[in-house]
C-alpha cells in the first residue's frame, strides 16, 4: 500500500496544501488576498515539481485499479498545473481591478485542478465520473462567484443545469456499460469488449451515452449550447480558466474512456465522432463570423477547435492520439493568451469584450497588437506558428487513415475560420481607435502575456520537441 501511495503523492500534496490555504483564508480576515494568491501559486509550483520528479516511464495501476500512472497522464497533469498557474497570474490582476477578489476563487481553482488530475489518471469508470464532478462543481461555483452580475448568474445557472444533464447522460452510459460487462475498471471493460464476437447492441447503447457526455464536456456540436453563454457571461478570469486547463482534462477523459476502455468498439465511436467533428467545425467557424463580442467569438472558435481535436482521436492510431494531444496543449496556450489580451485591455468598471475595443490597437500599443497578431494567426493556423502544426498533425493522421474527404472538410472550414481571426488583425492595424486610453496593466502581466505569445512563435519554429513528448506519451 505504501508503495502504491507514492504514485498519488502529487494529488495528496495538492489536496493538503489546498485545505491549508482554505484555513488560512478563513482565519486571516484581511482584505488583502495577495498572501492567498502567492500560497496558491506556490502550491501549483510544488505540485508541478513533484509531478516532474515522479514522472513515470511505464504504466502502473494503483489503488485497486482505480488509478493509473502513465506518461500521458503525467504530461497532461504537468501542463494542467502549469497553465492554471498562468491563469491565476492573469486572474489576480483582473480580480483586483474589478474588486472581485476572494480567497475562494483560488481555493476552488485548486480543487478544480485536483479534479482534473483525478480525471486524467483515472482508470475506472467510477473515478472518471468523480473527477469530472469535482472539476465541474468547482467551475459552476466559480462562474457564479460574481453574484451582482445578472449575466454571470444566468451563465452559472445554464452551465449548472446543462452540466448536470451531461453528467446524468454519462452516468447512464456508464451504468449500461457496467450492467453489460460487470466491470467498473477500464482494464476489465476492455477485456470484456475484446471477448465479444458480433455486435453487442447494449454495449453500443452505453457507448452512445458516454460519447454524448464527453461531447457535452468538450463542447462539441450539437451539445455546445452552453459554451457561448458561459464564456460570455462568466467573469473573464473564469472564462480564461474554463477555456484552458479543463479542455486538457476533457481530452484526457476522452482518451481514457474511448481508447483505454473501449478501443474494441473503435468502429462504432469513430462514426459518432466524425459527425461531432464535422458539425463542430462547421457550426463553430460559421457562427463565429457574425459575433461582435470577442468572448463569444472565442467561444465559437473553441467549438471549431474541438472539432479539430476530435479528428486526431477519430484516426484511431497512436500517432493520431498524439496529434490530438499536441493540439489540445497548444490550443489551451492560445486560448489563454487571447483571454489574457481581453483582460489586459480592460480596466476598472470596463470590460474590453467587444471587437471594437481592438480597433487601432497597433497605435495604442504596437507590441501588444503584435502579440494579438501572433495569437490570432496561430488560431487561424498560419505557418510558422504553432497553431499550424497542430492542424497539420491531425490532418496528416486523418489522411493516413484514408479519410480524405474528412481532411478536405477540415481544411475548408479552417479557411472559413481564418476570416474572423484576420478581421481582428484588420481592426487592430487598419482601423482608427475609438479611444486612446493607455493600457493600464502591471509589468508582470505584460511580461507573462508577452512570453505567452512568443511561446507560440517559438513552438512554431520548434514543434518537434513537444511533438516528441506527445508521441512518447502514447508509445
Amino acid at each position: 500500500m505504501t508503495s502504491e501511495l507514492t504514485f498519488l503523492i502529487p494529488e495528496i500534496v495538492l489536496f493538503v496544501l489546498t485545505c491549508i490555504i482554505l484555513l488560512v483564508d478563513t482565519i486571516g480576515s484581511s482584505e488583502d488576498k495577495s498572501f492567498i494568491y502567492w500560497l496558491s501559486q506556490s502550491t501549483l509550483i510544488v505540485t508541478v515539481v513533484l509531478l516532474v520528479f515522479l514522472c513515470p516511464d511505464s504504466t502502473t495501476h494503483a489503488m485497486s485499479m482505480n488509478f493509473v500512472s502513465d506518461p500521458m497522464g503525467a504530461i497532461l497533469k504537468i501542463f494542467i498545473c502549469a497553465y492554471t498557474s498562468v491563469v491565476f497570474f492573469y486572474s489576480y490582476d483582473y480580480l483586483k481591478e474589478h474588486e472581485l477578489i476572494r480567497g475562494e476563487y483560488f481555493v476552488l481553482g485548486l480543487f478544480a485542478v485536483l479534479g482534473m488530475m483525478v480525471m486524467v489518471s483515472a482508470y475506472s469508470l467510477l473515478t472518471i465520473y468523480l473527477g469530472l464532478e469535482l472539476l465541474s462543481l468547482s467551475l459552476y461555483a466559480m462562474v457564479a462567484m460574481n453574484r451582482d452580475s445578472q449575466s454571470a448568474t444566468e451563465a452559472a445557472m445554464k452551465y449548472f443545469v446543462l452540466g448536470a444533464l451531461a453528467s446524468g447522460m454519462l452516468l447512464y452510459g456508464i451504468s449500461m456499460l457496467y450492467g453489460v460487462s460487470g466491470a467498473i475498471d477500464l482494464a476489465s471493460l476492455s477485456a470484456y469488449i475484446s471477448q465479444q464476437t458480433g455486435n453487442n447492441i447494449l454495449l453500443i447503447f452505453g457507448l452512445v451515452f458516454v460519447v454524448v457526455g464527453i461531447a457535452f464536456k468538450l463542447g462539441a456540436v450539437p451539445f455546445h449550447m452552453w459554451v457561448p453563454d458561459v464564456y460570455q457571461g462568466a467573469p473573464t478570469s473564469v472564462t480564461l480558466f474554463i477555456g484552458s486547463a479543463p479542455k486538457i482534462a476533457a481530452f484526457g477523459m476522452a482518451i481514457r474512456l474511448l481508447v483505454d476502455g473501449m478501443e474494441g468498439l473503435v468502429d462504432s465511436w469513430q462514426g459518432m465522432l466524425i459527425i461531432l467533428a464535422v458539425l463542430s467545425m462547421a457550426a463553430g467557424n460559421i457562427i463565429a463570423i457574425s459575433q461582435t463580442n470577442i468572448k463569444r467569438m472565442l467561444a465559437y472558435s473553441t467549438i471549431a477547435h474541438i472539432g479539430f481535436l476530435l479528428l486526431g482521436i477519430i484516426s484511431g492510431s497512436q500517432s493520431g492520439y498524439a496529434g490530438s494531444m499536441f493540439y489540445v496543449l497548444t490550443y489551451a496556450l492560445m486560448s489563454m493568451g487571447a483571454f489574457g489580451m481581453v483582460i489586459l485591455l480592460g480596466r476598472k468598471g470596463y470590460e474590453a469584450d467587444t471587437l471594437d475595443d481592438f480597433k487601432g490597437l497597433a497605435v495604442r500599443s504596437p507590441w501588444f497588437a503584435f502579440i494579438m497578431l501572433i495569437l490570432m494567426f496561430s488560431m487561424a493556423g498560419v505557418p510558422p506558428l504553432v497553431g499550424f502544426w497542430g492542424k497539420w498533425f491531425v490532418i496528416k493522421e486523418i489522411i493516413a487513415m484514408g479519410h480524405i474527404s474528412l481532411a478536405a472538410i477540415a481544411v475548408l472550414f479552417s479557411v472559413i475560420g481564418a476570416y474572423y481571426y484576420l478581421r481582428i488583425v484588420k481592426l487592430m492595424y487598419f482601423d482608427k481607435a475609438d479611444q486612446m486610453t493607455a493600457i493600464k496593466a502591471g509589468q508582470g502581466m505584460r511580461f507573462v502575456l508577452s512570453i505567452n505569445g512568443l511561446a507560440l512563435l517559438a513552438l512554431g519554429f520548434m514543434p518537434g520537441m513537444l511533438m516528441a513528448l506527445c508521441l512518447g506519451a502514447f508509445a
Partner: protein
Amino acid sequence: MIEQIVFYCFAAMLIFSAGMVVSMRNPVVSVLFLVLSFFSCAAIWLLLQAEFLAIVLILVYVGAVMVLFLFVVMMLDINMTVLREGFVKFLPVGIGVAVLMLISMGLIVGSSQFDIAAVASVAQHDPGYSNTKELGLALYTNYLYPFEIAGIILLVAIIAAISLTMRKPRTHKTPKPEKQVSVKRKDRVRLVKMKAEKE
C-alpha cells in the same frame, strides 16, 4: 412465491407514488409521495438482502433530505399554475418524444439482453452475514480512492454553497453592544467652563 407478491406490491406502489410526485398540484403532497416512493424502494432493497442500503435510504433520504426538502417547499410558496403554463401546449410534442424514446430504448434494452437467465441470480447468504461489514470492507479497501474523492466533492460543495450565499458583514450602522457597555462618561460628556452671563 410470497417474496414475489411482496415485490410486485412494492413495485406497484413505487411506480404509483413516483407518478403522483410529478402529477400532484400541491408541491407538499408531491414531496410526501416522494417519501412514499423512497419507502417502497427501501423495501425492494430489503428483498435483495441489502439491508444496509435500505436503512440508509430511509435514514438519510427520508429522515434528513426529505424533511429539508419539505421545509424548502413550504417556505418558498411556489405558484404551480405559473409553472404549469404551456403544459397543454407542449403536451403533444412531449408525448411524441417520450413514446419515441420509449420505443427505441425498448427495442434495445427490452430485447433478450437483460434476460433473467443472462443475469446471475442474487447470492444467498446465511442469516449471520453482515451486509454492513462487507460494504465497509469494500469502501475502505478496494474503493478507498473513489471514496476519498467523493469526500472532497462534498467539501467543495460546502465551500461553494457558503461562498455563494454568505454576504460580507453588513456595512450599515448597527449599535455594537460591547462598545456601548465600555463607554466611560468622559468619552461622551464634555464639561465646558464658561462665565456666567448677566441678563
